[in-house]
């Protein structure tokens, strides 16, 4: 194979895609603008919802203050504003109050019912706060009874419990950052490869520039190799920009206390980012060879889009599976394309990836890329596909 020819094709393709608006949007604008914008919007939305929910969560419906004699003091002490409502259940359903409290008397004593709507954040928060206030009241009531009977209050707490998270900040970051990242990187990488792949194949057919290249001494295998390498470069640049953009967004865009904690914890380390980039190179080559091979069948740019859009969606499926918690990258699972790299990215950020799985996944993806290249080269030699004769 004449690598000089492939290099000439590669350079020309890169020059062309660097001047193509559609490619630039998918390769540069989406990762650099859309991702930070999306994260920022999510951040702002979470922050504003958080504040709104906290304000709403303080309203509690009661039939009348007199009808909740046991718990009224505890609710007020917890900061709740009792609001008189005739239909306690309906008031929660109609979002007039965050929660409602009803007190009834039976043979065993007062019975408290708390009405909440678990689909509403404010109502859920109110439910938790009311339960905490009532638990506190219950403990104080028991304590008062014990004081009169001479039994020690220690019987209430025979032991204490404490949950200790042994996961490091890096591992927590991996859980948050790595799970979502694999999916987003794969999705954007395939989208980033899609337009160049169409432009270099169906686009050349449509613009009638292919014949001139085919009549040159350049071999068809060399031409395809140059095209696949250029498409893979576009895919890889998309991955680099996506990773960088997400890392930056996580580190600097936190707005609320809650998101700040999550986002800053999720900000990944540089070494993990570099490792993840190494892991995506074989996948970029695989995506490029697959997309070039398929786009070669299209006669026009439009037709190419309709062929490759389902491929991007198809690629998203193993990526979604890779996001699921509890999955480990075993040597067998490391053979599954796309899933393996998503899982690998997650484990790299968790800091406990296996070198064996890393090697298997990379070799498997390179093998798939080589198969894709061989198929693309074969298709490119088929004049029936190129000229529809």
């Amino acid at each position, binding site marked *: 194979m004449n690598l*000089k*020819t492939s*290099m*000439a*094709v590669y*350079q*020309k393709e890169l*020059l*062309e895609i660097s*001047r*193509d608006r559609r490619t630039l949007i998918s390769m540069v604008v989406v990762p650099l603008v859309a991702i930070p914008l999306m994260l920022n919007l999510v951040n702002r939305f979470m922050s504003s919802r958080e504040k709104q929910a906290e304000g709403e969560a303080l309203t509690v419906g009661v039939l009348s203050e007199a009808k909740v004699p046991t718990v009224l003091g505890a609710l007020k002490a917890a900061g709740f504003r009792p609001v008189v409502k005739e239909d306690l259940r309906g008031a929660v359903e109609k979002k007039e109050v965050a929660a409602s409290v009803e007190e009834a008397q039976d043979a065993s004593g007062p019975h408290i019912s708390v009405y909440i709507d678990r689909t509403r954040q404010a109502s859920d928060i109110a439910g938790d706060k009311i339960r905490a206030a009532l638990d506190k009241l219950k403990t104080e009531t028991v304590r008062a009874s014990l004081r009169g009977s001479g039994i020690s209050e220690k019987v209430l707490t025979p032991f204490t419990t404490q949950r200790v998270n042994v996961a490091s900040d890096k591992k927590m970051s991996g859980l948050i950052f790595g799970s979502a990242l694999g999916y987003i990187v794969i999705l954007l990488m395939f989208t980033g490869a899609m337009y160049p792949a169409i432009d270099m194949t169906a686009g050349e057919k449509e*613009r*009638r*520039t292919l*014949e*001139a*290249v*085919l*009549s*040159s*001494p*350049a*071999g068809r295998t060399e031409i395809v190799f140059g095209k696949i390498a250029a498409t893979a470069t576009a895919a890889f640049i998309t991955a680099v920009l996506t990773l960088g953009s997400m890392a930056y967004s996580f580190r600097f865009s936190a707005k609320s206390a809650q998101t700040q904690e999550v986002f800053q914890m999720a900000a990944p380390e540089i070494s993990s980012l570099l490792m993840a980039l190494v892991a995506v190179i074989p996948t970029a080559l695989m995506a490029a060879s697959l997309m070039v091979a398929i786009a070669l069948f299209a006669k026009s740019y439009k037709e190419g889009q309709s062929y490759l859009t389902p491929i991007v969606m198809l690629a998203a499926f193993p990526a979604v599976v890779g996001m699921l918690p509890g999955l480990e990258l075993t040597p067998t699972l490391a053979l599954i394309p796309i899933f393996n790299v998503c899982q690998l990215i997650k484990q790299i950020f968790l800091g406990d990836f296996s070198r064996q799985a890393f090697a298997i996944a990379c070799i498997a993806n390179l093998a798939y890329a080589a198969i894709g290249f061989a198929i693309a080269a074969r298709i490119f030699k088929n*004049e*029936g596909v190129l*000229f529809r*004769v």
Partner: protein
Amino acid sequence: MIQVDKLAKFFHDKKRGVVHALDHVSFEVKEREIFGLLGPNGAGKTTCLRLLATILKPTEGTATVGGADIVRSPEQVRRKIGFLSGDMGSYARLTPREVLAFFGKLNGLEGQKLRQGIDEMVRIFEFGEYANTKIDKLSTGMKQKVAIARTVLHDPPILILDEPSAGLDVPTARLIENFILQAKESGKSIIFSTHVMEEAEYLCDRIGVVHQGKLAAIGTMDQLRELTGKQRLREIFLDLLDMSERGQGARA
């Protein structure tokens, strides 16, 4: 320079079945000769030129181009030719210099030789400041000049031109005619297809008429006049098509 020997190309069409796009055609193109291929649409001209340029593979028969066999040594053939088609597009996002650099590299030029070649093309075709302007901003005439320049940049001894003046205005078509004549003067062999009878009459040393994939006649203008008894090429051409449809093969 070109010897075509019973060259045939068949392909399968869903509606029409097996189509004989080119049906065992034989002819030759000599050194420093301009050979014209004439024929109605779908006659097989483009298929024949694509086969000679090794873009397509023949079903049967073969040809040698500059001594290299199109089946056995397609890459050798492509080293000796410059191929230009009238409906070929151009790389709109690249500049003429970038297009020339690309095709120069594909043809094995590099370094100083490539730079000199590009500079020479820029001078000969008078690109001037447009040499660094994106092609989609250039006029049709200028685009055609770029196409010609990339065809001859590597100085091939043989030119294969498929309707090179199709759809061009008179001044731009004149540019093509001059290019073909200059190429002949510089010692090249040229085979080209055209629908413009006036152009063929003016340029060609010999003409081959293709109809329904077969060669209906071949010869100089005088030989074709003698064969048909007609004077103008348009009349000769129509006469030859009639004869071909009646099954009267004619060779001058």
